[in-house]
C-alpha cells in the first residue's frame, strides 16, 4: 500500500470463488486475501460467493451473482478463476461503474493474445507463480532419493503447463547443480486429473493418482491442483514408514495437513494486491492493467508485501535448505533463470535457442510441456 488510506464510507467488494472458501487451496487463498483487506482497511467489507461452477450449481451464473453483489453495493468484484474470464467481460460491460478483476486472465494485457478484449473497467491480476514453482521443483530434486518426481496436474492449459514446466526446470537445475547428478536421469511425470479439483466419476480421483505415483516409486509429489490430496495421501504413506515427501500448492497453510513430510509450499498471497486495488478504487486512482505480480525476493513469506510466496516445510533438512536458499538467492538477483535456452518442447521442437531467455509471452503461452517431462501436453 502507498500509505494509509481512510475510507469515508463503507467499501463493499465481492469475491467470487470457483470452489469452497475452505478448500485449503486456491479458493481459500483468495478468501483470505479478502479477509486481509477487511483487516487492513477499516470500512472495507467483503461479500463472498463460493463454489460457482456448473457442476455444483447449475442454476447459478456469474452474471446472476454479480447482479446480486452489485445490488448489495459492491464497487469491485474479483472473479477468481480462469473459468470466469469470458463471463467477467460480459459483466464488466453490463456494469461499467463497477471494477472487475479477472484473476489469472490475460484480457487486459496489451501484449497478450486477447489484448483489447477487456472493457476499461476490467483488470487482471496474477501472482508470478512460475518462480515459486521452480523453487518447489528444486526442493523436490534436492530431496528425492529415487530420482522420481511426480506432478499432480489439474487440467491442461497455458497456466498449468507453465507451472508444471517451471517446476521441472527448477528441479533439473538443482539436480544438476547441487547434487551433481545427470538431470536427464530425473524422472518427472505429470498426470492430469481433468479438472482443478476432484469431480467424482468425471475426473481421475487424485487420491488414487497419488497412490499410483507412490506405488510407482515416486518419492516427492508436487501438487498442481486446488485441493490437498497430494500431501494427505503422501502423509498416510509416510506414517507407514515410507520415505516420501509432498509439496502442496496455492495456500500458505497447506503444510499443516502433514507438516512432517512437507518440503514447503508455493502459495498465492492475494492480500496486498487486493488491498492495492481497493485503495486505488477508493481514491479514484485505479486504472486498467494486467499485473503479473512478482514475489518479494527479500522475504518470500512477508505477507504484507509479497504476492506469491514460498514457505519452507518442516521436512526440509538444514543442509538441503542451504542449497535451496542459494537457488532462491540466485533467482532473486537474476543469476539463475531456469527459463534459459536451450529449451525444447516435448515434441522436440526448439523453443528457446541456446542462451535465449524466455519472454513473459513465451512463459505465459507455453504451448506444450518440455522435453524430458513425461505426461500428456494436451
Amino acid at each position, binding site marked *: 500500500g502507498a500509505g494509509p488510506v481512510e475510507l469515508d464510507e463503507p467499501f463493499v467488494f465481492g469475491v467470487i470463488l470457483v470452489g469452497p472458501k475452505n478448500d485449503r487451496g486456491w479458493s481459500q487463498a483468495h478468501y483470505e486475501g479478502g479477509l486481509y483487506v477487511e483487516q487492513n482497511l477499516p470500512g472495507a467489507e467483503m*461479500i*463472498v*460467493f*463460493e*463454489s460457482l*461452477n*456448473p*457442476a*455444483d*450449481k*447449475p*442454476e*447459478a*451464473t456469474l*452474471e*446472476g*451473482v454479480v*447482479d*446480486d*453483489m452489485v445490488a*448489495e453495493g459492491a464497487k469491485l468484484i474479483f472473479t477468481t478463476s*480462469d*473459468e*470466469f*474470464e*469470458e463471463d467477467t467481460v460480459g459483466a464488466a460491460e*453490463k456494469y461499467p461503474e463497477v471494477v472487475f478483476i479477472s484473476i489469472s486472465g490475460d484480457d487486459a494485457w496489451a501484449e497478450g*493474445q*486477447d489484448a483489447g478484449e477487456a472493457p476499461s473497467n476490467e483488470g487482471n491480476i496474477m501472482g508470478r507463480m512460475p518462480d515459486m514453482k521452480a523453487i518447489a521443483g528444486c526442493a523436490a530434486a534436492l530431496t528425492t532419493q529415487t530420482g522420481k518426481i511426480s506432478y499432480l496436474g489439474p*487440467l*491442461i*492449459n*497455458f497456466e498449468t503447463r507453465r507451472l508444471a514446466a517451471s517446476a521441472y526446470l527448477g528441479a533439473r537445475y538443482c539436480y544438476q547443480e547441487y547434487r551433481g547428478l545427470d538431470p536427464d536421469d530425473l524422472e518427472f511425470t505429470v498426470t492430469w486429473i*481433468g*479438472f*482443478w479439483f476432484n*469431480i467424482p*466419476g*468425471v475426473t481421475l480421483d487424485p487420491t488414487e493418482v497419488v497412490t499410483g505415483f507412490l506405488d510407482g516409486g515416486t518419492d516427492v509429489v508436487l501438487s498442481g491442483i486446488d485441493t490437498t490430496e497430494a500431501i494427505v495421501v503422501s502423509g498416510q504413506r509416510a506414517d507407514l514408514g515410507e520415505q516420501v515427501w509432498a509439496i502442496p500448492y496455492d495456500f500458505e497453510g497447506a503444510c499443516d495437513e502433514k507438516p512432517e513430510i512437507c518440503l514447503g509450499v508455493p502459495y498465492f498471497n492475494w492480500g496486498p494486491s487486493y488491498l492495492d486495488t481497493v485503495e486505488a478504487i477508493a481514491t479514484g486512482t485505479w486504472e486498467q492493467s494486467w499485473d503479473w505480480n512478482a514475489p518479494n525476493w527479500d522475504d518470500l513469506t512477508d505477507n504484507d508485501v509479497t504476492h506469491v510466496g514460498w514457505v519452507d516445510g518442516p521436512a526440509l533438512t538444514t543442509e538441503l535448505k542451504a542449497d535451496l536458499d542459494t537457488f532462491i538467492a540466485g533467482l532473486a538477483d537474476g543469476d539463475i533463470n531456469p527459463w534459459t535456452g536451450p529449451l525444447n518442447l516435448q515434441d522436440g521442437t526448439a523453443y528457446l535457442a541456446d542462451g535465449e531467455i524466455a519472454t513473459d509471452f513465451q512463459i505465459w*503461452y507455453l*504451448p506444450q510441456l518440455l522435453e524430458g517431462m513425461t505426461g500428456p501436453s*494436451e
Partner: protein
Amino acid sequence: MKRASLLQRGWVIVPILVALVITALLLLAFKVSPVEGFGAMIRGAFGDMSKTLSVTAFWVPMTLAAVGLVVSFTAGLWNIGVEGQIVMGAIAASWLALKLDVPRGLLIPLEMLAAMAAGAIWAGIVAVLKTRGKVHEIFGGLAFNNLAIIFTNYLISGPWQPPEGGTFRGTSPFPDKALLPLLGDSRLSPISVVMVIVAVVGVFLILRGTAWGLKLKALGKNPDSAFLLGVSSERETILALMLCGALAGLGGAVRVTSWFDSLRQSISGGIGYLALLVVMLSAFRVAIVPFVSFFFSAVLNGSITLQLRTQLHSALGGILTGVMVLLVLLFGDIRTLRILPGQRRKKAVPDE
C-alpha cells in the same frame, strides 16, 4: 373411478409444510432466522424482473426433461440417464452451432432437431442395453451420464478448444445466429417457453389420447399382461426412452443456446436429477410438472441469494426440495397411512 375426497386431495399440504418446518429448524441450527432465510430466498427468486426471468430460464430445460420423464415413468422406466441425455443434446446443438454456417432461420431449428436426435439416441442405447442386454436402465443411464460429461470434457479440452488455447471452461461462444433470441437482458428465450408449452400439451395429449400413450400406461403397470394385450414391450420401451431423451436433449440445446452461449463443462450439472424429483413430487402427472418445476427453480435460484446474504451453504435449497419430495412420497397419500399401527384396514364384518 371414485373421486378423491377433499381431505385426500388436501392432505398433501401437510408433508409440504413439515418439510418447510424442518428446513426452518436447520436454518435456526445455523443461527439464521427462518424469516430472513426464506425472505432472502424469495427475494432471490422474485426480487425483481431479472430474477424472475432467470428463474424462468432455468425452469425451461428442467421442465422439458421432467415432461419427458413423465413418459418414461408411465412406461415403468427409471430414466436416470436423463442427465446424460441433456448433455448429449447440448453437445449436438453445439456441434451445429460451431460448425454449420447457414442462416439463423435454418440453423436454430437444425440445432434443436440435432439435440433431440442426440438425446434420443443416447436414451436409445440405454434402452437397447435394457431390452437386449438386461442391463437395468438405472445403471445404463448412470454410466451414460458420466460418459456424456466425460465426452464434453474431451471436446472442450480437445477438438473444440477455443483457438486462443484451452481453459476448461468451454468452447468459444457461438455466433449470434446460432443463439436463441433472448428476452431483453435475460437468458430466457420466448421460443424456449413455447417449446415447453408444446411439450407439456403434447405429452399430455399423447398420454391421454393416443394409442401409444395407452400402451405405455399398460406397459408400465404390467408388462406381461400388456404384452398379451398386444403391446410390443421392446419397441415401446425403446420409444418411450427415446421420446424422453429427445425432450431432455432439447433441454440441453436450450442450455447452450440461451442460458450459456457455448458448450461448458457440466452443462447440466444435475438438472436431470432435479427433473426426476420434480416428476415424483408431481405424482407423475404432466399437468402438474411445470408448476412443481417452477417451484424447484425458484428455490434453487433463491438459495443463491440466501448464500450471499447468510454465507450458508446453498445446498439448503436442495435439502428443502429433497425433504419435501421424500415426505410427500412417504406420507403424501392419506389412504396408505391407514395401514399404520393401530388402524389396520377395515375388514368386512359378518353382517348377521
